[in-house]
């Protein structure tokens, strides 16, 4: 009889809830009972509120048991969970769990299903089909496919990926580079981490396709130092890709070279800004560069460079596999395809939800998120990380779409949604936005370096009621200066959380909302 396959995730969040202890307990119990199982450490499905989620492969498909603590393990064996037996933790077929079933997983198609470091598993689940197709295409056609897919940079800036690639393809240079921005520093986001830990080959494949498309032979993954597991998993996957000739001097016998290396960052949020990242990779302080020149023309070490976010690059393989139209058929308006949305903060059912653009915040927060974790009303959500606007309940019917968010003077950013219940003090959150900016400012431009510190001081005055009306005006003026005068998004977007909090939650700033709210909304910095 074949060994039963048991899956226990190795994703950081699953581990943070004790997945290793669960795995050890299952292995020990199986040995104690003389049962031979095959324990696979898969990635996480991203249903994080159910981790550690254990799955068992049966004739009918994979059956989930969750959340499984070591203390539950003996009971699961008693209930014959290896054959899908009934148990209080039995959730039925994993694929039928509504949270997963209703998603449209394209970029995350394999995440949680496969063993992240098994190349065989990757190949068995449509891996490297995109690269195979790309190798039979001209460089121009690969770039055209990416352009036609409508894919826009998923790191936050939403710049069309194909146009960026086309610039690098057309740039003259003996040496070109592909740089993956894996400095995922936004609070409320973890989709990059999941791709790297749970399906690293898809990122490797995406970068390889990028290299072939634009004629770059060297790639770097600039990985934040807070992700040690991702570092080990990426390095293990890269070594396997090299051994199987998917990376190296002659990728798949095509005669084209592509080498890949992971470089660890060192805890500077500003290095998520692409020019600061390039400085850092060159071994310098991560000071933001003036643009132009664009990195596509003069990037890493002065050479033409594609800088893309993890999710953008990890989406390339499916576009090249299934075709640009397949991807572009998802989405709404100018936001094509899907967005891996991350539910975070005070949310009952936090996790990764990949859906076509167009789903509303309310559907995400309640149908998927199940409301707040505390059981209290959700008062505000911050979308797009620490530089994203706060949205009040009245805006929860906004569809997830770049342009719809822009209309509200908000951003989608990297797709993180952090929920806050009604105990939140929004003036405190505004002060924190300035504090964070002051800690992370690279110091190159004055509006950001000085403005952030002044912002903290102004917020303290507002909170203490000192010269209140005057300081509210100072806050707006300062935000306007930072917004228009900063060199990059760190200083330039810190006003988003600040002013959105002020406009929508004026009562927390000591304003008489009944009179001021309408005025403020009209006046909004945007």
């Amino acid at each position, binding site marked *: 009889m074949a060994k039963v396959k048991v899956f226990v995730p190795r994703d*950081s*969040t699953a*581990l*943070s*809830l004790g997945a290793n202890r669960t795995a050890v307990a299952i292995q020990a119990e199986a040995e104690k009972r003389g049962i031979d199982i095959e324990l696979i450490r898969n990635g996480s499905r991203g249903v*994080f*509120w159910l*981790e550690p989620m254990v799955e068992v492969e049966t004739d009918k498909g994979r059956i989930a048991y969750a959340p499984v603590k070591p203390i539950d393990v003996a009971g699961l064996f008693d209930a014959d969970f290896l054959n899908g037996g009934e148990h209080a933790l039995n959730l039925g077929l994993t694929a039928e769990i509504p949270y997963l079933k209703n998603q449209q997983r394209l970029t995350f198609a394999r995440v949680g299903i496969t063993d992240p470091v098994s190349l065989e598993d990757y190949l068995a689940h449509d891996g490297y089909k995109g690269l195979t197709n790309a190798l039979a295409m001209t460089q121009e056609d690969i770039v055209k496919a990416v352009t036609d897919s409508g894919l826009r940079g998923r790191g936050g800036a939403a710049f069309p990926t194909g146009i960026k690639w086309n610039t690098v393809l057309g740039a003259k240079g003996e040496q070109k580079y592909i740089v993956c921005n894996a400095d*995922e*520093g*936004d*609070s*409320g*986001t*973890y989709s*990059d*981490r999941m791709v790297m830990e749970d399906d690293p080959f898809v990122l490797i494949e995406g970068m390889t396709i990028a290299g072939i498309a634009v004629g770059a032979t060297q790639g770097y993954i600039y990985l934040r*130092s*807070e*992700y*040690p*597991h991702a570092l080990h998993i990426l390095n293990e996957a890269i070594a396997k890709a090299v051994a199987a000739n998917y990376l190296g001097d002659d990728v798949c016998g095509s005669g084209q070279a592509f080498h890949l290396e992971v*470089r*660890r*960052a*060192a*805890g*500077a*949020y500003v290095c998520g800004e692409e020019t600061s990242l390039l400085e*850092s*990779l*060159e*071994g*310098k*302080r*991560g000071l933001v560069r003036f643009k132009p020149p664009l990195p596509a023309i003069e990037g890493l*070490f002065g050479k033409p460079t594609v800088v893309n976010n993890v999710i953008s690059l990890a989406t390339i393989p499916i576009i090249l596999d299934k075709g640009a139209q397949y991807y572009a058929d998802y989405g709404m308006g100018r936001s094509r395809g899907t967005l891996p949305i*991350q*539910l*975070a*903060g*005070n*949310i009952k059912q*936090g*996790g*990764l939800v990949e859906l076509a653009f167009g789903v509303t915040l309310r559907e995400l927060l309640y149908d998927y998120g199940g409301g707040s974790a505390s059981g209290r009303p959700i008062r505000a959500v*911050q979308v797009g990380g*620490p530089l994203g606007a706060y949205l009040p309940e009245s805006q929860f019917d906004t569809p997830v779409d770049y342009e719809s968010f822009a209309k509200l003077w908000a951003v989608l950013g990297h797709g*993180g949604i*952090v*929920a*806050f*219940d009604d105990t*939140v003090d929004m003036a405190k*959150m505004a002060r*924190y936005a300035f504090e*964070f900016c002051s*800690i*992370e400012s*690279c110091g190159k431009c004055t509006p950001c370096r000085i403005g952030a510190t002044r912002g903290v001081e102004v917020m303290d005055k507002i909170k203490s009621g000192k010269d209140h009306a005057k300081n509210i005006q100072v806050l707006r003026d300062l935000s306007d200066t930072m917004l228009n005068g900063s060199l990059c998004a760190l200083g330039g977007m810190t006003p988003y959380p600040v002013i959105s909090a002020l406009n929508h939650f004026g009562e927390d700033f000591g304003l008489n909302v009944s009179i001021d709210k309408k005025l403020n909304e009209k006046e909004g910095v945007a």
Partner: protein
Amino acid sequence: MGISLVNKLSDSDLKKIESHIFAHQGVPGALMPLLHAVQDDIGYVPEEIYPQISQALALSVAEVHGFVTFYHHFRTHPVGKHVLQVCRAESCQAMGSEKLESEIKAKLGIDYHQTTMDGEVTLLPVYCLGNCACSPAVMMDDEVYGRVDAQAVADLVSEVSNG
């Protein structure tokens, strides 16, 4: 409060550092990976090795100093046997991390960037661990822990201190 740990490089530390410097010569953008190698190995980046690094990588000492101090990850002094990072970012704040921070500081009797009197644990702030679906989160050395409270963190501290 907290213990102050003294920079003292042993001969073997110096040998290790020398070999890291040697291994990184000729690597493009070598400073970052070199400093990671040094800190991973001996726990911090000693200021007294700046001249050696600057000479090997053709940088000025000021450039090396500027680099080290720019990045939050690098430290120029030794830390405790374990490093406990507490997330201060928005998602964790939404789940009460501010209260958690003060409880942890009170329990350990130290503030951020300080080390417990027994030299076991150094406390550091961190801005996002990518564990935001299960906030609040802390990281002990290389492992993240989600949905923690002060008691869970205290248990974690005694676990590593006794282990």
